[in-house]
């Protein structure tokens, strides 16, 4: 049973967004609604949070890709999101490599596995 097509949203720095847009996940609707947000040094946390919540509210967004350092800024909003769809994935950026101990999803499963899995 396939549901309706859903988009992959991206919230990240310029390089991340460029890369993913090149792979074809970007969409700009006629209503000037896009499914991505380029986060620069001067982007306010409020704007990021608003965009994030906007994506959560839309029913055509299935996955939200977010750079880990951006996720840190709106950590409380991400931790509050407990539904399974849309799925929030934290990806590393060029300056900030992937840190598994900060990932929201893995923190929920804390205590279920030992540190040796984090090799």
């Amino acid at each position, binding site marked *: *049973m*396939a*549901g*309706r*097509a*859903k*988009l*992959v949203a991206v919230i990240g720095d*310029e*390089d*991340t*967004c*460029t*890369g*993913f*847009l*090149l*792979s*074809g*996940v*970007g*969409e*700009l609707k006629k209503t000037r609604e*896009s*499914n*991505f947000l*380029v986060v620069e040094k001067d982007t306010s946390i409020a704007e990021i949070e608003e965009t994030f919540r906007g994506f959560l509210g839309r029913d055509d967004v*299935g*996955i939200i*890709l977010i750079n880990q350092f951006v996720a840190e800024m709106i950590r409380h909003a991400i931790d509050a999101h*407990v*539904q*399974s*769809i849309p*799925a*929030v*994935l934290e*990806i*590393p*950026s*060029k300056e900030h*490599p*992937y840190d*598994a101990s900060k*990932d929201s*999803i*893995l923190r*929920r*499963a804390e205590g*279920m*596995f030992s540190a040796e*899995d*984090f*090799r």
Partner: protein
Amino acid sequence: MSGKDRIDIFPSRMAQTIMKARLKGAQTGRNLLKKKADALSMRFRQILRKIIETKTLMGEVMREAAFSLAEAKFAAGDFSTTVIQNVNKAQVKVRAKKDNVAGVTLPVFEHYQEGGDSYELTGLARGGEQLAKLKRNYAKAVELLVELASLQTSFVTLDEAIKITNRRVNAIEHVIIPRIERTLSYIITELDEREREEFYRLKKIQEKKKQLKEKSEKEIARRLAELGPMAEPVNLLMEETDEDLLFE
């Protein structure tokens, strides 16, 4: 806690049978739910392990993709603005399918492509090869990420399902079954008590009857002694009152 009372039911033999059947039902239900929770937990652990593996893999893939982006930038100049301006329709989308595990429906993402590549002409000026490699790398990254997203959604859904099932198991084990057991013991005590009362009553009646019999025998013996040796049986025709007539 006073909330854990027994069920209000009139104590009878049938009620006892009904309660026994209910107890059996509750125990079977509890065992089945326990098995379901175990199956779900096992699947949960599997998925968790897979997630950790995939995430580490994803870290590497992303690093490679970022590296090829730097290469492409070096070769083709800064194309970020062009790319961002030229967004219109998405070619890569995902679909949510339903998967079933031990009675729990899990959402699974499937990625598919639609339409042509809108960035075909971007690298035409210079750095076309790097750009093509970059596109491929990011496409690969997207596939991996979609898989990761499926794992994550299953993870979250399973987490909820396991919590609910465990809650039900505990509820049955600590509330429902003790309540039924208490009701059962109450019914049994009541029935025993009633039997004892019956028994006691019967005994009392027997005693009374015996006393009555002794008394009447004594009467007869006395009358016999009064009348002397001329003991005659009772003459029905001489009786004035008939005790069988209710209304005179």
